[in-house]
């Protein structure tokens, strides 16, 4: 028995829409099996993961908080991946964005009383992320260096740099040897929108606005057309007069800026200060969000909420069912696998070939 792929003459619109759902369903099934193997009740665990976090208002706020950086980063990544620029270093751009944005409250603490503080911080965060992303972009454009490896290496460098800052020059003297920078105050804190109900801040609004704007770019504007052409067929892109070099910079700077913005939003909002660990791997989870959302910013909003749900669910399940929160990471990885596998159905039909038929029909042709 063998599995064979037969190319479809055109992409299947049906599967383009269905594949994320099929992938999610498969992941849920895999999760159920996993929980059973771990000796926990599958239904209890699945409920804790996917339903329980949705039942309380404060929990919905937490969902928004977790989803915001995922969506912001993934939207930028969608532009990158669509143009065949593989920015895997969003985690690093997130960190650097947090650092550059935090420069204001840490180096000029008095400015935190000014209303200009937050907009300045956000802009600096975005610029910092963009500048950091410009490094792998430049190396690819000028030296043809593989951007996956360079952007990834820079993630480790960024994390180490943050560690250095927070333990060294930016350490809060009042914090009794805890490695962290001074807490942000005044206007340097991203305020909660509805403090009575939960902690959600404007981050989720940035995320949704960014998603809508990028969707418009990709689907209605010539620039978006350029992104897709260069990604699908660089030679045709040159024929159209598009510059692949400019696109490298455009996509990396855009996604770097969005990742940087996510970084400073997270640090000025949910966390409130700079510390060695400011991201539970958002930059990498955002890759999954981008693919789950089929590289469509509107789909990414939904996918981001879904993945945020798994983060929350993991924390909840740890308490209620006794399952380690590491399981979440494993399930997220599985989800990406299923998404990619299901995407095959968009381009190919699957045919099972029996061994008997194999013997009579010859193989190999030009």
């Amino acid at each position: 028995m063998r599995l064979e792929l037969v190319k479809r003459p055109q992409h299947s619109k049906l599967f383009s829409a269905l594949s994320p759902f099929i992938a999610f369903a498969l992941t849920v099934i895999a999760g159920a099996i996993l929980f059973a193997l771990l000796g926990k009740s599958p239904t209890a665990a699945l409920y804790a993961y996917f339903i329980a976090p949705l039942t309380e208002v404060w929990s919905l706020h937490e969902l928004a908080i977790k989803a915001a950086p995922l969506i912001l980063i993934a939207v930028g990544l969608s532009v990158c991946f669509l143009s065949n620029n593989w920015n895997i270093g969003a985690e690093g751009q997130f960190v650097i964005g947090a650092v550059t944005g935090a420069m204001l409250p840490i180096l000029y603490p008095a400015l935190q009383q000014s209303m200009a503080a937050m907009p300045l911080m956000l802009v600096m965060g975005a610029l910092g992320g963009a500048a950091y992303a410009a490094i792998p972009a430049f190396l690819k454009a000028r030296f043809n260096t593989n951007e996956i490896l360079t952007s990834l290496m820079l993630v480790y460098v960024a994390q180490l740099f943050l560690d250095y800052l927070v333990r060294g020059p930016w350490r809060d003297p009042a914090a009794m040897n805890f490695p962290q920078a001074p807490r942000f105050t005044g206007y340097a804190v991203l305020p909660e929108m509805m403090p009575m109900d939960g902690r959600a801040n404007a981050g989720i609004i940035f995320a949704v606005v960014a998603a809508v704007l990028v969707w418009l770019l990709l689907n209605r504007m010539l620039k978006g057309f350029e992104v897709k052409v260069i990604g699908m067929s660089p030679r045709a892109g040159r024929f159209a007069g598009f510059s692949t070099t400019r696109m490298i910079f455009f996509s990396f700077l855009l996604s770097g800026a969005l990742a940087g913005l996510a970084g400073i939003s997270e640090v000025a909002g949910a966390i409130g200060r700079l510390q060695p660990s400011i991201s539970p791997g958002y930059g990498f989870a955002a890759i999954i969000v981008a693919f789950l959302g089929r590289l469509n910013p509107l789909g990414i909003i939904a996918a981001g909420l879904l993945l945020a749900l798994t983060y929350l669910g993991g924390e909840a399940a740890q308490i209620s069912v006794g399952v380690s929160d590491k399981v979440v990471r494993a399930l997220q990885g599985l989800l990406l696998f299923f998404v990619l596998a299901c995407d095959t159905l968009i381009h190919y039909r699957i045919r099972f070939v029996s061994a008997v038929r194999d013997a009579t029909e010859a193989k190999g042709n030009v």
Partner: protein
Amino acid sequence: MGNTPPGATSDETDLLLDVRGLTKTFGTLTACDRVDLDIAKGEIHALLGENGAGKSTLVKMLFGTLTPNSGEIRWNGRPVAIRSPGEARRLGIGMVFQHFSLFEALTAAENIALSLDARTPISQIAERARTLSVNYGLPLDPDAHVGDLSVGERQRIEIIRCLLQEPQLIILDEPTSVLTPQEADKLFETLERLRGEGKSILYISHRLEEVQRICDRATVLRHGKVVAHCNPREQTPASLATMMVGSSVHEVKREAAQAATGAVLIEIANLSQPAKTPFAMPLKNISLSVRASEVVGIAGVAGNGQGEFFEAVSGEVRQAAGTIRIRGVDAGLLGISGRRLLGAGFVPEERLGHGAVPGMKLSENMLLARHKSDARAFLRGGALGVIDRSAVEATTQRVIKEMDVRKSAEDPEASALSGGNLQKFIIGRELDRTPSVLVVNQPTWGVDAGAAARIRQALIDLTRNGSAVIVISQDLDELFEISDRIAVMSHGEMSATIPIAEATREKIGLLMGGADEAARAH
């Protein structure tokens, strides 16, 4: 049952290959419909037909890469079932494909070794290959890396690889499409030598004069059926063509060529360009002028810099100022968009992946080439560049109608169209703008005869409007049909142009082989 070769008895066991009623269907499409064919020992047999006639399907069944649905194949009188290329080789059938299966990073000997059994050491294979190649007049160096070889030399590897397995029947698929006339002559000598040794050849071609020259008999296919068995020497190219196409082929109508007197619309002066990659061809000092209402044809075998020349002229690669002038304006520093704004249009050799994006719809592919030139019609909102879908779609449908593009949906993806239909769309996309200068690379490659004739006529009609056309083509027949003047590209250099009335196939052939060094100056 075909007519028996002259002088032979009707005893069937003299036949090397006897195919009866061979049929192959793919779903609802019948690619081969009860095909009969026979080949005697020591015969060169032509298989004629245009693209889509069923030649490759038939031949794939003979070579074991496809299995027939019904019918019989007899080899030396015995019925056989050929289930794989390995079995075909064991019977004694060898094949040289039109598209080579060679590994660029490996040597010729290694390439040959990969298609033979695993037991013989490569050094031995290299020696045998070298000896064989010299014997048959197609010398090759076993230690050369394929990436460094010309197309003609690569074909030799394929032929030697085939001959090393000592076949009795050799199938050749369009072998001269990649050769200069002189190299083709050398090949014919080799084929005649093989025939003298008692081997047989099945020669697939659409080049009728060649077929008349070397083939003893011919089988003509049309829409999967055999329409004739004949002796090509008793036919004319026109009668053969009619058999292949089924009706008299549309003759391209054009006025008698006169020396053009219009303005010079595109002028290329001393264009030189270094090779971009190790396998590319540098361009050396190319000069060319084309006037209004003129068609200049550029002949040459693949791999002599045509693609690089096209890239240079289209602006995908830019030049120094003064090298190229379009309508009198200096275009050297401009990119392809800038040149389009000057009124030029371009059609590259590759449809999918260069002229069109395979996964995108036709309307999106319309935008691909015309977003700059038609910005006022197709885009709104100034710098934002918001796409006006209805405007783009309207233009797309207009081109589809004008060029009679056959498709299965309203606005299908480019990859869903057949080669000929996609080419009609791509050319139509440019013609719709009535460009002052049109540069086309291989306008009818892989396109069926009907669409090809339509395309050639469209190119000529364009000149009636005063446009200048440059056609780069490997098909000399095509160039002779539509050009006013003809030049030849060889090793990155271009010869001076020759008025079509003075050009002969021989002269052009020599230039293609690079023989005429003197005729280089403009």
